[in-house]
């Protein structure tokens, strides 16, 4: 850099050199190109904003006029009496299946693949299968649920029940849990493991005391995000029968309830949106607000955990 040299003519020399190097013409094409890129980005973000404005402007009046009534009431054929309580309860129960089944199985599978397995053709096959399972359309998992949980295992699950729905969702998010957990495990440097092996720890002792504590934030973030994915999933639940059912609350024992008809928040949204009664338009938007608030809270928690505990090696 020659700027700031005391000699007078040096400044103009620098200018001349700079002009030669930059080209004299204005770079119109470059500016247009950059403007187009910004436009693409702005449209993508603008869509998100428009969507939120559309949903909230349609749905918030429901909460203003009815308060929490919308959250505590069950389904009804009249739009100003219908609520999402059954859907929330159903979705929470479905999430319990996902937490109880997918998380231990998924974390266990990735511990095997990352910490135990050698690079054999079988291991590579399992890895390929998992990657492809993650890309299978959700509705195909719904068909699996219909065939296996509603059909073959119908005697145990009771057919189109919350048990079938929960198992279907658990299988749907399993590959996602495995992939995110594997990433978190891979991020732990080998030296950490070697330190444990060096003092005579077995493989499991190494994993439990050294690898898992360091990978825990990553695993937690990944599993929370896959829970969010399961929470909004609709198509497979429709196939395994969440649309028709409503909960019988009440005196029934939990087992009876689990084997009875059910519904979930996203399928309620679908059901509301198909209702010919125009009054359900606002109810649909209000139910979407409930869904989005839950999802934003869950995603926010995941992002918070990631930023709070993220560790660079």
């Amino acid at each position: 850099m020659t700027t700031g040299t005391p000699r007078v003519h040096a400044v103009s020399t620098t200018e001349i050199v700079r002009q030669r190097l930059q080209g004299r013409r204005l770079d119109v094409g470059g500016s247009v190109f950059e403007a187009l890129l910004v436009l693409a980005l702005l449209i993508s973000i603008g869509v998100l904003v428009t969507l939120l404005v559309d949903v909230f402007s349609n749905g918030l009046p429901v909460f203003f006029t009815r308060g929490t009534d919308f959250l505590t009431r069950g389904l009804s054929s009249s739009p100003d009496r219908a609520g999402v309580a059954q859907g929330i309860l159903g979705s929470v129960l479905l999430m319990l299946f996902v937490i109880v089944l997918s998380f231990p199985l998924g974390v266990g599978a990735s511990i095997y693949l990352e910490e135990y397995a050698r690079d054999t053709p079988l291991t590579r096959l399992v890895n390929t299968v998992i990657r492809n399972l993650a890309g299978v359309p959700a509705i195909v998992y719904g068909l699996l649920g219909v065939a296996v949980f509603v059909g073959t295992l119908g005697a145990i699950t009771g057919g189109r029940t919350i048990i079938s729905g929960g198992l279907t969702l658990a299988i749907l998010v399993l590959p996602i849990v495995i992939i995110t957990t594997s990433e978190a495990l891979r991020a732990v440097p080998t030296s950490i493991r070697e330190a444990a092996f060096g003092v005579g720890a077995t493989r499991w002792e190494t994993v439990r005391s050294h690898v898992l504590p360091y990978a825990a934030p990553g695993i937690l973030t990944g599993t929370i995000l896959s829970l969010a994915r399961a929470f909004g999933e609709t198509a497979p639940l429709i196939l395994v029968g969440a649309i028709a059912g409503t909960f019988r609350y009440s005196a029934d024992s939990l087992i009876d309830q689990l084997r009875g008809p059910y519904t979930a928040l996203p399928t309620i949204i679908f059901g509301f949106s198909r209702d010919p009664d125009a009054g359900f338009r606002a109810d649909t938007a209000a139910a979407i607000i409930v869904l989005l608030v839950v999802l934003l809270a869950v995603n926010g928690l995941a992002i918070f955990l990631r930023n709070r505990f993220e560790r660079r090696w």
Partner: protein
Amino acid sequence: MAAPSVPSNGRLTIGDLRGSAGRRRREAILRTAFASAAMLSIVISLAIIVSLVGEAWNFLSRVDLGLLLERGWFPRRDLYGISTIVTGTFIVAGIGMIVATPLGLGAAIYLSEYASPRLRRTIKPILEILAGIPSVVLGYFALTFLSPTIVDTVCPGQTNIFNMAAAGIGVGILITPLIASVAEDALYAVPNSLREASYGLGARRRTTSLRIVFPAAISGIVAALILGMSRGIGETMIVAMAAGASGGSLFQLNPCEPGQTMTAAMTALATGSDQVRGAALAFPSLFFVGLLLFAMTLTLNLVADAFVRRVRTRY
């Protein structure tokens, strides 16, 4: 974790260092448990294939195969014109790609080549939020916002609020963040030395982005587009809500009209008042369509995977 006690004669053997039998047993049990969890994925894949193929075969062996070539998809009236819903699928996914390709790739190039690190850190979570919006929400958005505003201006004299164009744009919004994120990863993975070489020759940023970085990342970008297409083909809720999935559909090429995709046909069968028990073959036809969808998305995903691996081995 007791250290092996030194034997009385003062000499350690290998046996002393192997740890207690209990420790070894626990190790073996856990290893088996983890391995079975991993093998479960193979069981799941087999279960998917077996259940799809079984019922699909049931359908194919009983249906009059000539019916599959007819136009129109009305399973409750035993009309299984598969071309109708395959065409509908490609129209909707195609519109989605037309919307998502410029948006996704534009956003990816901007984030990777132009944006400051700080802007990048702000924008990426926003795109992640967009990616996390459930498709049932986008279906509502397509039906109540996209259809009456955007589609109404694009399609002159359009009267039906349910149409494939709205569903297609909705699908485009859904896959934009996916394409952006995969393509951005590919662009970002291009080594800086290539960019510096280009700048060193006096190239501008646009030339560097388009002539150097973009071609170097082309495998990943192709993979992003294929993955987007695969997601679009498999997307269900947006189409079921916005494209007019009511029972059946005529063969339809005009995106301004209602139509049906493979996925929407499946939900329509499942949500009918008679719960798939209508015509005798309606239930197995569900699995035939599912198998076709599964085969299509699997092929696309495998191709995309091969492209992604090419990027990874290069740099």
